[in-house]
């Protein structure tokens, strides 16, 4: 390689390195702000002030969904395992909403510590399978989550 080309190659590599370092620093600084949602554990640790808008993400706790008879109002609990947050919502839910589903609720805590959601989004997971397979898993007493855990434990 001629000296000019070597020089140009060095410049190209320095550009990549410089931009990479700048981006890494910027992302470290913005880490918190880049999180699309906070978990119930974060809520418990940070003690989010009442009335401040944020996005809460987690799983809908099994057996926690209570629907009102005469309105759209729905009560449920969002959990990430160790911590729970009670949520109230009064609008139309996405199709994928059900117990055990990952969701993101946008809203704020009220003074009683209940999360008043203005919007609820369903979070889809990376799992795809035919319905027969899902049924077969249910029958043998395995849930999709169990299978995931098993897959992750494999070396």
């Amino acid at each position, binding site marked *: 390689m001629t000296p000019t*080309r070597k020089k140009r190659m060095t410049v190209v590599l320095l550009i990549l390195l410089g*931009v990479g370092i700048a981006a890494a620093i910027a*992302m470290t600084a913005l880490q918190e702000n880049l999180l699309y949602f906070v978990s119930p554990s974060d809520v418990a640790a940070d003690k989010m002030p009442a009335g401040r808008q944020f996005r809460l993400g987690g799983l809908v706790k099994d057996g926690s969904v209570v629907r009102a008879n005469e309105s759209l109002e729905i009560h449920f609990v969002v959990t990430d395992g160790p911590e729970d947050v009670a949520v109230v919502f009064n609008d139309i839910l*996405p199709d994928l909403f059900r117990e055990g589903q990952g969701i993101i609720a946008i809203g704020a805590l009220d003074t009683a510590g209940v999360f008043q959601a203005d919007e609820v989004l369903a979070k*889809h997971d*990376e799992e*795809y399978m*035919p*319905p027969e397979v899902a049924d077969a898993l249910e029958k043998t007493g395995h849930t999709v989550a169990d299978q995931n855990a098993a897959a992750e434990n494999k070396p």
Partner: protein
Amino acid sequence: MNPVMKFIHKTGSPAYFYWLSGRMIPWLWAIFAVLTIWGMYQAFFVAPTDYQQGESYRIIYIHVPAAWMSMMIYILMAIFGAIGLIWRIRIAEIFAVSSAPIGAAFALIALITGSIWGKPTWGTYWVWDARLTSQLVLFFLYLGVMGLHSAIDEPRKAARAAALLALVGVVNLPIIHFSVDWWNTLHQGTTVKIGGGSKMPNSMLIPLLVMAIATKFYYGAALLTRARNRLLDQDRRRGWVAKKIKEDQL
């Protein structure tokens, strides 16, 4: 001269490239067409429905290949740009510049199909999470490369300026890919993993991979077609073009 450099120089000669690409393009289109027809048929009529999303998941057969291509083309554009910057090989500069509109189209397709899928699945067309935002930035980077290139009249200077911007934008690629691991996002994690462990049965995965291969042939055909046109335009006063026109008229 070693054989690799010899090959590069030979392919870099405009007349030879024009001839070679002319022979390759029909084959690339043909393979693309066969794979796409077969892949789309498998995707829409043969692959099973999803246990959770039903039929709407089938949009991944367009969304995922388009998103992969938008990233792969960006990497190639930056590599061609770097080769052009370092070795001043004109055909590499032309490849880099010709890649931008193709990549931009794939990025836009990924954004639009994702949005259409997002409404029924998530309950919203768009959110500003890290994955969606970084993919939108990728689309704007393509537009930036195209805009910068067209703003400079002299083609070789224009190509070098565009290549520099393309290089700077490379930093966005790991951000797109790892965004779903590094931060909480609404977008789900990676389903298809290189080296096994994909979270999808083969009946769903194979049509997806076929579509991913088909789009690569589309890129090859579209890139060579665009590169040929650009080369002809740049060399319109050069001898080999005049000779080519004369040959074609006979």
